[in-house]
């Protein structure tokens, strides 16, 4: 290994921060959300460090010496620089991330990528379809919608998870349902007989969900297959393709369009996405191994 740290002086922050350089953030709280998901709440070490982001954007989270993973920001864009990232323990980095404790420091690069078209939803019905952990990247959009609730017409959240125990942000959703005019329909793949809610895939809820297809903006995030079938149901109901937005996922290493890993057909998910208008990826959506 090459000699390290010849210069131990502090980082000299240039006028434009290097997008390749992680910025230290300190963990304020680690919250177990479900069996395999958790949320990290972090604040910048340097209090003067500003951070703004739009709903749907992601950060690259670095665990010291282990590696980096792209994680959507799931906190309120109106409450920065506190950032929350909900993630699932799936690989080496997220496993190490789960071991981090309050007070430890991690690196953040971002925010990167495109965002949910919240402004474009003004005066329209908004249908949000989330699957599993796919609710996390949509939560900042919900914060924005709730912050200016009167600007929008009906807001419907259709949320599918494997079991009732896999639901994210349950208390928050219940609070919102009580406080705002927000239609929330939750469904699970299966449940014990004690579950009082819906059982079935989230796509089956679209047919009867209360929204006006001719004046609706839809935002989808979840497993690719769920989004494909959701798209079919939305189009069947008469929602125009250009009013459907979905969040795609691919391997990401750099976040800035250099490394090539996140290519999805002609797009780079890190900079053209992760949020795409359906027509821009309709030709490749569902194609195997693209």
């Amino acid at each position, binding site marked *: 290994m090459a000699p390290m740290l*010849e210069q131990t002086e502090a980082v000299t922050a240039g006028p434009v921060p290097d997008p390749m350089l992680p910025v*230290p953030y*300190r963990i304020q709280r680690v919250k177990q959300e479900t069996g395999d998901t958790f949320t990290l709440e972090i604040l910048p070490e340097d209090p003067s460090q500003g951070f703004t982001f739009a709903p749907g954007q992601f950060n690259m989270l670095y665990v*010291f*010496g282990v590696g980096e993973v792209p994680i959507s920001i799931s906190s309120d864009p109106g409450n920065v620089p506190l950032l929350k990232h909900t993630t699932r323990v799936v690989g080496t980095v997220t496993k190490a991330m789960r071991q981090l404790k309050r007070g*430890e420091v991690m690196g953040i690069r971002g925010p990167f990528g495109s965002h949910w078209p919240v402004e474009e939803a003004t005066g329209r019905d908004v249908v949000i379809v989330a699957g599993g952990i796919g609710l996390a990247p949509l939560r900042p959009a919900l914060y924005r919608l709730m912050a200016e609730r009167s600007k929008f017409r009906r807001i419907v959240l259709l949320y599918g998870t494997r079991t009732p125990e896999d639901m994210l942000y349950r208390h928050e959703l219940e609070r919102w349902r009580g406080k705002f005019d927000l239609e929330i329909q939750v469904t699970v793949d299966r449940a014990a007989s004690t579950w009082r809610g819906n059982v079935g895939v989230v796509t089956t809820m679209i047919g009867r969900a209360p929204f006006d297809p001719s004046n609706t903006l839809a935002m989808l995030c979840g497993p690719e297959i769920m989004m494909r079938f959701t798209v079919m149901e939305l189009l069947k109901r008469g929602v125009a393709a250009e009013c459907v937005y979905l969040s795609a996922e691919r*391997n990401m290493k750099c976040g800035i*369009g250099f*490394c090539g890993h996140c290519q999805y057909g*002609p797009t780079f998910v890190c900079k053209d996405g992760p949020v795409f208008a359906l027509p821009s990826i309709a030709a490749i959506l569902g194609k195997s191994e693209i």
Partner: protein
Amino acid sequence: MKVPTQRAKTAEPSHVGDSFVVEREHLEQLLQALVSRSYELVGPTLRDGAIVYDHLTSTADLPSGWTDEQAGGKYRLQRRQDQALFGYAVGPHSWKKFLFPPQQRLWQAARNGKGLQILPAEEQAEPKYAFFGVRACELHAIAIQDKVYLEGQFVDPGYKARRENLFVVAVNCGQAGGTCFCASMNTGPKATSGFDLALTELLQDGRHCFVVEVGSVRGAEILSAVPHQPASDADRQQAERILDHTARHMGRQLDTLGIKELLYRNYEHPRWDDVTQRCLTCANCTIVCPTCFCTTVEDVTDLTGEHAERWRRWDSCFTVDFSYIHGGSVRATPRSRYRQWMTHKLATWIDQFGVSGCVGCGRCITWCPVGIDITVEAGAIRASDSIKAPPDQSKDSP
């Protein structure tokens, strides 16, 4: 600092776009003029049975009197009958290894207690390269990588510095290689832009000289340190004849008409299954390709665990891990990985950067261990394209 001992023969200043003639015996002074201006000179030289790009100290390092025989999966050096300095096509190296090194340390980090300190890679003066002998296809390849690293939302600072420092001596190709198809890709064989000086080697009737086209003020300044004279019409015409001959003797050709749409509508073409039977997914094509830019990062720590570094390394879409996500790879099969590579080169690249990702240099054909030929594969898909391309607009009668 070395100062050229011989003054320019011509008194008038060299102008951008003008052509001059430099005799073979004065070429050394061109190299030394660059060295004396503290350029790090790199260019073609013989090593390990191939013509590679490496550091040059003088024209003696150039592969004088050598040529190469290239075919699918085949590369052989041969002696020429003459002492041409540039009598061969491109080899396994491309200039990207200098402009975008295969391994770069991005930053280092130190743990201090619970804290974390990130330090940028130490400030080091980026090398000031002079590339000697850049072919037209390679100029296009550099321009394509510029689009990736300089012309997007984000700029790679190291690449930018190396690129800005760069001095380019291009060489117009005196002969086409066995796997070349730059004429199909409109990227050669003549260098038309992106150089400071462009040479065309003339070897006829015992005369050995170079027609030098000036491409920039910097180029003119360097040339002023080298004995030169205005190119005659006859010199220019001979240079044109050579280039015309090269263009007409391409080893390969590729029909690019509507190729983006062709590949977009043939994601499920049976030819992908066919090529899978041959492709070893060895990644050679991506390593030798002068435009391939994919990288990965590696995070490493030392034994104490107190220091960490991030390294960026060339990567290839042919590796299984390339598309790894949530415990599996998106492109798990070789079929999909070859399809990704070729479709990226010839189709999606156009949507991403406004140009093809292929410059027709033929390296991927020559260095493929089983001789898979991108022109043949694209041709096979076109030959059995179920949907015919729209009629060529240019053929419409008025």
